[in-house]
């Protein structure tokens, strides 16, 4: 049920993104502003200065409206993204039964915050909506990253890990390149950027992919829809899952 909701939310978001993008670039105010500005320039060249000034004033008014519209849409877009991420976080955490049981109160609180965020979104209060959604995400963020136990994965059915804990090594120490090359991660160091992009928000300097620290838990995003659960276990042989 949750997965269906998530898919629906993502599909809606993609659709809204495309629509918004088109609307923003060609929104009625921006279009009107461009037309007035063109008329002002033509009048200017003809020497019809009074008309030029009038059209330029109208263009400025339309551009101001366009900026207000874009500002509003930006807030709406950010709120929608935050709600989407909050929903994904709740789904992720709830998908591991042990975690869901252990943090039932937090998950319930996160769901309540998400419901508030949605209500505020419907009421077109984008700023508050985004804040509530981010509160919901913050509530579960650490649980999602750290407390996904390896034990939840059946020992008889080895699956690819979803998290990896960075360790310091005397030789070939952990970096996104080395981690991406490990069996169980991607077995392909050239995929390191996927790890970097997925974990930027957990990094001290998100723009510097070299700065990862021992103890940091990084998420291994699924590249081709492969199932990933739990944390990387160095004692397991993931080479059979290639």
């Amino acid at each position: 049920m949750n997965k269906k909701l998530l898919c629906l939310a993502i599909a809606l978001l993609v659709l809204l993104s495309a629509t918004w993008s088109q609307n923003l670039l060609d929104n009625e105010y921006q279009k009107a502003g461009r037309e007035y500005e063109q008329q002002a320039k033509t009048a200017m060249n003809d020497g019809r200065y009074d008309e030029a000034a009038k059209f330029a004033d109208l263009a400025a008014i339309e551009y101001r409206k366009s900026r207000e519209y874009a500002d509003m849409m930006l807030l709406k877009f950010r709120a929608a993204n935050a709600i989407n991420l909050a929903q994904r976080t709740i789904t992720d955490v709830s998908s591991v039964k042990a975690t869901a049981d252990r943090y039932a109160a937090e998950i319930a609180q996160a769901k309540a915050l998400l419901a508030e965020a949605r209500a505020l979104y419907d009421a077109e209060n984008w700023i508050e909506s985004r804040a509530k959604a981010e509160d919901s995400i913050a509530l579960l963020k650490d649980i999602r990253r750290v407390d996904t136990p390896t034990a939840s994965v059946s020992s008889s059915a080895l699956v690819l890990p979803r998290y990896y804990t960075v360790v310091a090594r005397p030789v070939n120490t952990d970096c996104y390149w080395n981690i991406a090359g490990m069996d169980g991660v991607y077995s392909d160091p050239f995929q390191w950027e996927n790890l970097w992009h997925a974990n930027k928000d957990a990094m001290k300097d998100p723009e510097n992919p070299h700065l990862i620290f021992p103890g940091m838990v990084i998420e291994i995003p699924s590249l081709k829809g492969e199932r990933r659960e739990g944390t990387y276990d160095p004692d397991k042989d993931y080479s059979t899952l290639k």
Partner: protein
Amino acid sequence: MKKNVLAILMTGFALLLAVSCASAPQKPAEPLDDLSVARKAAEDSRAKALEIKADVAVNALFTEADTVFTAAKESETAEAPEAALGEYTQAADLFTTAYNEAKAKRDAAMNALDTAERERVASEDVLRQMEEEQNTEEEARNE
């Protein structure tokens, strides 16, 4: 004796000639010069006004100036230099006024266009920011 008479006659003739030349009426050169200057000033003012498109921007004023300018040319052709002088001077003043008014209007229009351009750039900045955020979100989702 004959030589003396001839010398006296020659001197008398020369004196008579000198006196007659001194008392002859001179042509009035000054008014003609003033007219040329006034005509040139009016033509220059008209060209300057046309350059800024005052004929469109302040059409009524320019037309009035042009009417006076045409009358000045007609007066000049009709050999009424004093009337032409006054009309050229008036036309020059009117063309200058037309120029000044057109320039004020043009400056105001240019300011308004600058404002519109600034507003456009500001709105496009927000639109670009929005696009970048959307692209980043798309990339993250694709990963």
